[in-house]
Structures are given as structure tokens and as C-alpha cells.
């Protein structure tokens, strides 16, 4: 019974929760109540993931838990929901991350606390919607509207350059996404409806496919972001309040990669195959060039932001390599190419793992900023003396960011690099640079900030994490370690959908064009 509603509930419960939080927050006296209401809704949303998980059958690749209603009559636009093994992961991740953000904001006495909590709840619902929809226009609606909470979040609670950062963020995203809308409208003239499923089976001429590829690239490359359109990200991440940075890193960027997997690749695979040198090249530039850029950052948030770009480079590499891998091992049964699947699943795993490590690192900088009012590396030294518990946790997350075996960060990177060897040794070698660069920038930052002699009196006194902050870090540490030791769970859920994705993509490429 619940299975007919579960996706709608996952979208609307947090949104309505956000509105209720706003309503409660109309009266500033309700400070404590606001937090409890927001937390309650975040918990309910997370709790909804339990039936989602049990109703979902990971052995099927088809869309499940389907809901279909007419939405705009006469325009063929439906309120159609459904999830497969890839999107279900991100929905659960989103619900979890939202809870983390609300918990970590617990002890802050930010002004307009109700609005702060509300935008993250609303954003959670919208992002869930984007992952759960099977109608292209509905996807656009959720994709686009999720910009608004983030725009407000950066703009209201952001740092000194918040206006610049939020405007740049919004305008670049908006500019990118209109091309996707055009592509949808064009595909609609071909298929007669807006079902993503039908889009994937539309036959297009080479020219049409080329235009559609460019439209999707414009949208999703900005969202991920790929080099060279990543410039909004350091600004938005740096200026955003820590909750905003977490959502951006953990979910918003993933929407871009998800877009490639859901739309761009299955709809026009042949163009991706023809241009995979470009896409792989851009991914490698993101990994290496942005990795180097990371080392030179003086602002911790900016450093982690660039490291996100670099990590997303690995993700895109894992996704776009599939053609090359299949091409290299041509002669086997290419539709069930295990190596390509490893790369793709590695990319999906990396997306999930990156959410925990980058999210935790952003939150950590937020905790430091709340205490000492600076994000600059040079303002810190020997912080481990003042915040020993923090230092211990932060070491774990730094290691996850680096990709230390045993943490979640390792699995995805390893799978992608492993798959890259099948594509081309040079790609693999270049991609493996991340294994050198990530420790360099992460650990060097860690060393400069947390180790060393105590600098000034302000780091001499104990000023360690509060209970809610410890809880947040514990909650983030658990998946970081568990998925590092037992990645099978995530891989199992996404396996059927990923395998089907490969079969579909490869089946649309004419044989002999490898």
C-alpha cells in the first residue's frame, strides 16, 4: 500500500515540514521548538527510506515504486515517479545528509534559524524529486527549483562575497539548464511524450544527436562541474554556510553526474562515444590540474571545494570511459563487459562516498569557523591541542578524502583506476595522480591546521566539539568506515541498473564503430 505513495511522501514530507518550520518560526520566541520540528521532519523523511529500501528490489533494473498522474493536460506532462538502483541510493543519501545538516546546525544561534532549517528541508524534497522522477519536464522542474533554496542559503547566511557567489551560482546553473529544457522539448517532438524511457529509444540523425549532446553537456557539465565551467563552485562553496556547502557537495553535484547517466548517455550514446576523448580529457584535467590548484589554496573551504571538482573528475572519468573499455576488449560479449561495469559502479560508489568525506570536511571547517572566525589555513596552528576529539575525527575524514584503504573513499577510486587500465594505460596513470595529489593537499592542510606548536593564546584553551557536533561526526564516520570495509551493499543495489544501463548504451552503438 505504502509503495504507491512512498516516493511522493519522500518529496512532499520534507517540503511541508519546511513550510511548517517557517510557520513556527514566524515567532522568534520558538527557538527550541523550531529545531525540534525541523529535526522531526528530517527524521520522518529518513525513516521513510526504510520502506523505500525494503520495497525496492535491487535485482530488477526497471523503474520501481512507480506513480503516474497527469500533471499538465494537453502538454503530455505527467507527475510520474519511479526509481531504479542508481536513484534510490541518492534519495537515501539525500535524506541522511539533510538530517546531518540539521543536527550540525543545532547549536548555532544563526539569525533566522527557522528559515535556515526550512530551506534545507525544502531542498531535500526537491532533490528527492529530481532523483525520483521519470518525466523529463518534472525532472527539469525539480532540478531547477532546487537552485532556489541554495541561492537563498548562500545569499542569506553566506560569507563576505555571498552576493557575488550566489548570483554567479544561480545564473550559471540557470543558463546551463535551459539547454536541457530545449533538448527535452525537441525530443518531445520526436517521441510524443516526456517519458525519459521513451527518450532513450528515440532515433535521431547525427546532427540532431550532436545538438542534443551539446545541450545536455551544457547543463550537466556546469552542474557536476567539469573543468572549465567549474568556476562557480569554489565561490559558491566557499561563501555558503556549511550546511549549504554540504548539500552542494553531497547532492547537487551528483545531480549533474546523474543527469549524464539518466539522460545524456542513454539518449545520445553514439556522440559520447565519438567525443569520449574530449570528455575523458576534461575529466583528467579536472583530476590533475584542479588537484594541483588545490595544493595552493589558502582558504580551507576553497581547498575542499576544488578537491570536490577533482573527485568529480574521477566520477566523470568512470562514466565516460565505458566506450573505450568496451572498445579495447572488443570481441568479448561487449554488452556484459565487466570492466566497464566496474568503472561505472566505481563512479557511482565514488559519488556516494564523496558525499560523506567532503560533507564531513566542510562541516569541520564550519566548526572551526564558528569557534575562531577564520577559514584561512594560516590563521590556525596546533588546533589539535584545543580540539582533540575534532582532530581525531577530522583525520578519519581526511583519510577518506585521500582514499585510504579501509575508508569509503578508497573503493570508488580504486575501481575507477582499475577500470581505467582496461581503457588505456595512460589514462590510468594520469587518473592515478589523484592518489598522489589528494594526500598532498589534504594532509598538508591537516598538518598546517591541526599539528604544530600552539599559535597564540586562543588555541591553548580547550574548545572541543559539542555533543551534537560529535553526533554528526559519528553519524558520518559510520558509513565512511562501513562502506570502506563492506562496499558490497552499495554495489549490489546499483548493480542491476548499472548493468542494464551499459547494455542499453552499447546496444545503441552500431557494431564495428569501436
Amino acid at each position, binding site marked *: 500500500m505504502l509503495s504507491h505513495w512512498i516516493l511522493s511522501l519522500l518529496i512532499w514530507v520534507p517540503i511541508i515540514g519546511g513550510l511548517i518550520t517557517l510557520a513556527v518560526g514566524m515567532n522568534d520566541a520558538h527557538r527550541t521548538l523550531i529545531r525540534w520540528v525541523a529535526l522531526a521532519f528530517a527524521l520522518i523523511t529518513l525513516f521513510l527510506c526504510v520502506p523505500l529500501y525494503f520495497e525496492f528490489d535491487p535485482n530488477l533494473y526497471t523503474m520501481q515504486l512507480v506513480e503516474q498522474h*497527469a500533471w499538465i493536460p494537453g502538454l503530455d506532462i505527467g507527475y510520474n515517479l519511479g526509481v531504479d538502483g542508481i536513484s534510490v541510493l541518492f534519495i537515501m543519501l539525500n535524506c541522511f545528509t539533510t538530517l546531518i545538516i540539521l543536527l550540525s546546525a543545532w547549536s548555532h544561534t544563526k539569525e533566522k534559524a527557522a528559515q535556515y532549517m526550512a530551506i534545507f528541508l525544502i531542498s531535500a524534497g526537491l532533490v528527492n524529486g529530481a532523483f525520483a522522477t521519470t518525466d523529463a519536464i518534472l525532472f527539469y522542474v525539480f532540478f531547477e527549483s532546487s537552485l532556489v533554496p541554495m541561492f537563498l542559503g548562500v545569499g542569506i547566511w553566506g560569507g563576505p562575497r555571498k552576493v557575488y557567489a*550566489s548570483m554567479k551560482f544561480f545564473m550559471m546553473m540557470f543558463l546551463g539548464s535551459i539547454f536541457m529544457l*530545449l533538448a527535452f522539448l*525537441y525530443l518531445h517532438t520526436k517521441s510524443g511524450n516526456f517519458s525519459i524511457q521513451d527518450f532513450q529509444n528515440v532515433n535521431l540523425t547525427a546532427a540532431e544527436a550532436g545538438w542534443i549532446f551539446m545541450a545536455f553537456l551544457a547543463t550537466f557539465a556546469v552542474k557536476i562541474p567539469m573543468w572549465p565551467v567549474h568556476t562557480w563552485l569554489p565561490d559558491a562553496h566557499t561563501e555558503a554556510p556549511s550546511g549549504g556547502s554540504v548539500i552542494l557537495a553531497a547532492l547537487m553535484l551528483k545531480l549533474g553526474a546523474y543527469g549524464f547517466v539518466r539522460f545524456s548517455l542513454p539518449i545520445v550514446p553514439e556522440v559520447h562515444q565519438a567525443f569520449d576523448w574530449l570528455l575523458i580529457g576534461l575529466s583528467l584535467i579536472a583530476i590533475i590540474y584542479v588537484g594541483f590548484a588545490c595544493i595552493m589554496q589558502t582558504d580551507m573551504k576553497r581547498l575542499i571545494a576544488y578537491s570536490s571538482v577533482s573527485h568529480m573528475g574521477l566520477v566523470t572519468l568512470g562514466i565516460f570511459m565505458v566506450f573505450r573499455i568496451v572498445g579495447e576488449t572488443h570481441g568479448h560479449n561487449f554488452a556484459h563487459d565487466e570492466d566497464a561495469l566496474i568503472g561505472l559502479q566505481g563512479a557511482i560508489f565514488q559519488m556516494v562516498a564523496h558525499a560523506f568525506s567532503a560533507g564531513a570536511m566542510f562541516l569541520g571547517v564550519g566548526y572551526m569557523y564558528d569557534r575562531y572566525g577564520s577559514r584561512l589555513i594560516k590563521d590556525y596552528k596546533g588546533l589539535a591541542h584545543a580540539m582533540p576529539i575534532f582532530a581525531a575525527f577530522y583525520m578519519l575524514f581526511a583519510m577518506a578524502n585521500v582514499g585510504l584503504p579501509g575508508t569509503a573513499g578508497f573503493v570508488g577510486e580504486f575501481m575507477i583506476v582499475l577500470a581505467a587500465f582496461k581503457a588505456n594505460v595512460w589514462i590510468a596513470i594520469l587518473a592515478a595522480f589523484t592518489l598522489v595529489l589528494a594526500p598532498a593537499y589534504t594532509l598538508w592542510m591537516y598538518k598546517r591546521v591541526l599539528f604544530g606548536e600552539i599559535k597564540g593564546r586562543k588555541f591553548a584553551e580547550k574548545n572541543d566539539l559539542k555533543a551534537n557536533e560529535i553526533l554528526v561526526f559519528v553519524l558520518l564516520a559510520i558509513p565512511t568506515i562501513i562502506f570502506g570495509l563492506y562496499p558490497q551493499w552499495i554495489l549490489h543495489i546499483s548493480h542491476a541498473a548499472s548493468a542494464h544501463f551499459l547494455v542499453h548504451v552499447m546496444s545503441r552503438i552500431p557494431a564495428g564503430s569501436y
Partner: protein
Amino acid sequence: MNLHEFIPALPEIFILIMICVIMMLDLFLDDEHRGFTYALTQLTLIVAAVITWRLYGMHAIVFSGQFVFDKLAAVLKFFIYLMGFALLMYGRTYVPDHKMPRGEFHVLVLLSLLGAMVLVSANSLLTLYIGLELMSLPLYAMVAMQRHVKRSSEAAMKYFVMGAMASGLLLFSFSFIYGLSGTILLPQIMTAHILGAHTYILMFALVFAIVAIAFKFAAVPFHMWAPDVYEGAPVVVTAFLGTIPKLAAFALLMRLVVGGFHLRFAEWHVVLTVLGILSIFFGNILALVQTNLKRLFAYSTISHIGFIFLAVALGTSAAYDAALYYAVVYVIMAVGGFGMILVISHKTEAENISDFTGLNFRNSWLAAMMLLLMLSMAGIPPLVGFDAKLYVIMALVNQHHYIIATYGLLMSVVGAYYYLRVVKVMYFDKPTTNKTLTTTVDGFIAASVNGLLVLLLGIFPAMLVVLCQGVF
């Protein structure tokens, strides 16, 4: 002529009677009791709406073919009442606060609405013209209502001269049409064979008609008057100027150009497309640099008009549906935008963007409503402005006008910037005063309903879409 002939015109007749009643009653009221005039005016609009609602679905041509009541007329009239009602509600305290003669104001509003209704229901050149003049003349007076304010008088003069010129052009066009076809009835003009032939006289008639309509819509390059008049008029009048005449002008466009000249689609298709492209471009670009919210809305209106023109230019009934939907949605949003200025203006005129600085800290509810309106105008989903843009762009893509569709979307990204600037000022900047902003109850209700309407119509677009889809 029997009594049944009057039924389709019942709303007009009722409003005319009420105008006389209100005018007479107002003579006997002193300033303290002028609230009665207000109430009676609102009641009139409600009753007229109910009558129109009851008549919906009827298709009748009466008064020797001069007057038509069809779905287009019904839908447009319905929104004319609704928007008139909302605007009066927003402006209830503004009018006395700004020392505008209250009785006369309401009578002029009703007269102008009546003109718009006649125009919307016109089925002949004569009725079109009568409606147009009846709508415009009270507006000229309303713009000049604050006699002591210099810029109001200037605006009124400008508006009057421009309006008169447009009317003159329209009459020119009518005379040519009559000369060619020998009739003033639109259905007969539509089928007159002479209009199928490409002659210079005919082109004169068509171009004059379109120019006059473009003047009324304030489409580029006939938009020069709009920003000055919008800025100069008291905002309650600007709100009227910017909304209800656009609905009427839409009817004029549909009935005269699309209906009357339907054989000359090849010509007006080009003209409307060019006007649309220019309007979208200049409207959006010039709006970027405005600091006065009324001027900003003037330019943003111009860009929205461009979308309506682009849709109408497509010449399919699906595109007309889209244009009607866009027009109605635009009017709902514009009423909200102007209404918001009315709500936060007390004794002064809060017309600059900076007057909204830190609104979130002073009255977070109003800020949220303004946020919804601005995002809707920018075309951000899931607000109704997005649905309207989607509808028009979809019509363009379905007709294979890909470049124009891309252009329209690109320009709406430009447009998003200036709407977001208003949001930025409200949410990101700290207020200069920490005093909570209080509003009148009416203003508060109107703003809330309007803002939430934009959201709810966006999430549940079916009703309004279906209403518009039945029209053409």
C-alpha cells in the same frame, strides 16, 4: 430586437448601472464614508464575475452582430474583474493616503473596466473602437489624478498623446478595411475575398492596426511611453495601466489581426515575430539597469509582451492557447508585483528597489510573497510563470522555431538577473531600519492570496490550462 439579446451583455449593463449608482451615491458621502464607495465597487465586480461565470459556455452574437460573447470574452472578462478586484484591494488605503479623490477614482476604474469589457466582446470595428476609447480615456484621467505632482501630469500628457496617436492609426486602419471590404463586422471582414489579395492599401491597413496594437501593448519599438508613464503615474494607477489594458489589447490583437486578417497570416506572422523578438531583447536588456521598480516592471512587461507576440505569431490554435495562458499569467504576476509596491507604500511611494532592502528582516511573510512573484516572473519552476514560458516555448519548438525558442530562453536568463536583484535586496541586504513593516489587512490578504496563487497555479496548472485550451 428582443430582450434575449441583452443577456450576453448583462455584465456590461450591470456595471454601467452600478457606475451611475456609485457616482450618484458618492455625491452624498463625505470623505469619512467613502469606504462605502469602495465596498460597493468591489461588490459590483463580484456580482459581474458571478454573472459572467453563469454565462460561461454561451456563444452569442447580438446587437446586429456588433457584440459577441464567446469563451475568449468570458475568460478575459473574468480575469478583468478578478484583477480589478485585487488591485482595488491592494490600493484601498493608498488612494486616500495620497489625497486622490476616492469617489472619482472608483468610478473611473469601473468605467475603464467597462471599456475593456466592451473591447473584449467587440465583434465589429465600431465596438472595438468604442471599447478602446472607453477604456483609455478614464486611464488618462487617472494618471493625472494627483494634479499637484508634476511628473504625474507629464506622464498623463505623454500617455494621452501617445494613446491618441495610436487610436488615430487604428481609425486609419479601420477606414481602409471598411473601404476594401464594405463592412465593419469582423466575421464578414474575415471572409471578405478582397482581403486575400496582396494590395498596398491592405498592407497599410494591416500595418496601422498592428502598430496601434503594439502601442497599446507597449511592444518595442512603440514602447517609449511605457517607462515614463509607469513611473509618473501613482502606483495604484500604474498597476491598472500595466495589467488590465494588456488583457484588452490581447483581445484586440486576436479579434482584429488574427481574426480579421487571418488570410494575411504570412504578413502578420513576420511582423509579430519581429516585434516579439525586439520586445524581448530591449525589455530585458533595459530592465537590467533600472533602479526604480516601476520602470523595471515597465521594461519587464515589454519583455513578457514579446513572448505573447511570439506565441500569437505562430498562428496555430495551440499557440493562441499558449498566448492567452501567458497573458493571464502575466497579469496575475504583474498585479502582484505592483500590489507589493502598494502594500509597502504608506504615505510615500515605495517605488525604488532599495525600498525593499532587508524586507525579510522587517516582514518575512511579505518578503516570501514577493520572492514567489519575482521568481515566477523570472520563470523559475514550479511557479506559474515557468508554466507559461514552457507553454510558449513548447509551441515554438513544436513549430520548429528552434532558434527563436533558444533566444527566448536565453533572454529569460538575462531577465532572471534583474528579478533576482530584487530578491537579493530583500533577503541578502540588511535593512536600514529594524522597524517591523506593518500592512493593512486588505493589502496583507491580497498579497498573500496573490503570492500563493502564483505558487499553487504553478504546482496545479491543470485548471487554468484547461480553461485556456478551450478558447481557440
